[in-house]
């Protein structure tokens, strides 16, 4: 408890590579939830004790795959009802995971617990520069209320410049239908 400021949490975590379960990196973090505010994201500071794996090769493969598509990518329901994701969609899904991580951070309080439940729709947006742009409609599951919240996110990505969520907005419940 920090008087007049909020609640601070000290965390020790282990980051595990989704693609290689044996590859882990320790991490320490401090999270400060501000007192009484609804619209301010918690402050996060973190230190990685080690290095994250270099992903240049896979990044470039994905980048070139998308760049070489004749038509802009469009997809729905990732994963499908049975939990399946096709190999070509795996990077699209991971991108959504990362981007929704940002949205979740911006909207978290001490009384929420969000997870990405499903990508309802994703549409690639044509760009004249080197960035890839995707317009996602995702479903976030909030554990305490058990609600499924549709959320729109506009995501920019570039192998060297990483991920950016340029726009996001919570949608009314029936927006996903």
């Amino acid at each position: 408890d920090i008087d007049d400021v909020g609640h601070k949490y000290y965390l020790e975590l282990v980051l595990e590579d989704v693609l290689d379960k044996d590859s882990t990196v320790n991490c320490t973090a401090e999270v400060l939830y501000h007192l009484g505010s609804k619209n301010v994201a918690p402050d996060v500071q973190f230190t990685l004790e080690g290095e994250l794996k270099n992903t240049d090769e896979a990044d470039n493969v994905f980048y070139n795959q998308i760049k070489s598509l004749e038509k802009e990518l469009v997809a729905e329901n990732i994963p499908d009802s049975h939990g399946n994701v096709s190999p070509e969609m795996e990077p699209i899904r991971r991108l959504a995971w990362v981007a929704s991580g940002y949205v979740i951070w911006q909207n978290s309080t001490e009384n929420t617990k969000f997870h990405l439940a499903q990508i309802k729709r994703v549409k690639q947006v044509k760009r004249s520069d080197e960035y890839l742009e995707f317009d996602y409609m995702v479903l976030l599951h909030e554990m305490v209320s058990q609600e499924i919240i549709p959320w729109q996110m506009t995501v920019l990505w570039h192998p060297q410049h990483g991920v950016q969520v340029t726009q996001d907005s919570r949608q009314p419940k029936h927006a996903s239908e």
Partner: protein
Amino acid sequence: DQVFHIVPETFQQVQHLQHLCSTLPLDLWKPQLPEDICAGKDLHIRVPAPLVQEVKDNLDHHTISYKVLIPDVQELVDQSMPNERRSHRQVPEGYIYTQYHPMEEIYQWMTQIQKSNSELVTQHYLGKTIENRTMYYLQISQPSDKAKKIIWMDCGIHAREWISPAFCQWFVKEILQNYKSDPKISRFLQNLDLYVLPVLNIDGYIYSWEKDRLWRKNRSPHMNGTCYGTDLNRNFNSSWGSIGVSYNCSSEIFCGSGPESEPETRAVVQFIKRKKSDILCYLTIHSYGQYILTPYGFTSKPPSNSEELMHVAEKAAAALMGKYGTSYKVGSTSSILYSNSGSSRDWAHMIGIPFSYTFELRDNGTHGFVLPVDQIQPTCEETM
């Protein structure tokens, strides 16, 4: 299995590749025959999964460069089938426990299970859902002159938690397949009867197959049919409506118009009340989160037998972890999850059933409710 694309550069490489083809069970896609392998020409070769690493190492060692053309052949095959589940269903007697099944098939499965195991299994009527579908439970009971205590397990109280009914079906299968050969299971059945309700929220489950995969509640109409669904796990008479609920139908945790307002709730309540003096243990299976939860959700006051409840749950979590290393957290809902009232597990304990647990199966949020089918088996095996 993977398919590699290689363009041999030298005659030596060609010879080596031909050698590989003749010594390992590799499947040449292009060209047709090893003798047609040529420097400068495309080579496509399918490598069976167990050999993938070995072949990669071998090519690296001989400085032959390759590209993985198809990283997962099975995936491609499955995708190209118009309805790959249908091909499984043609196998008679071959109920696939590692797939999710629609309600139609679960009804058929129950009938079939009773037919092929009639000495042990009987199917019973429990009640009707709000959309008038019949709820059945299976009784697994070894004939004996001994009066036996009962373990009750229900699955699928929340429609979207598909791994839960999958587990109930798996559980029944495991018991029936192994009760003669497995001493633990046979001892179990000598002293206990098992009652399994594979899908409690049938209407909701069907809705999650046909209309909305992430539906949770039942399908009772409210406000003149403008809003649907009560959260059945907020509808029981355990401090109903007091905390962790909504009184608004549009919420996922709407507790209903009153305790036991829903026919599904009443069906379970009537039965359990009737048998309660013989019921030793009440289990209700959910997902996700990886928890074994003890009473209560509506208060932090511990139940009277809290120590014993925790001890048994901790042993269960340890046994579960022993299988695949999956870690489950153990504790009361109010202390490790969130507050809620009207849960079936709390109600069961309050009417006197000593061991009452909620299981939240895999996973931790990565896939959440939409758990991929390849996790059905390990989830069920470890939970078993």
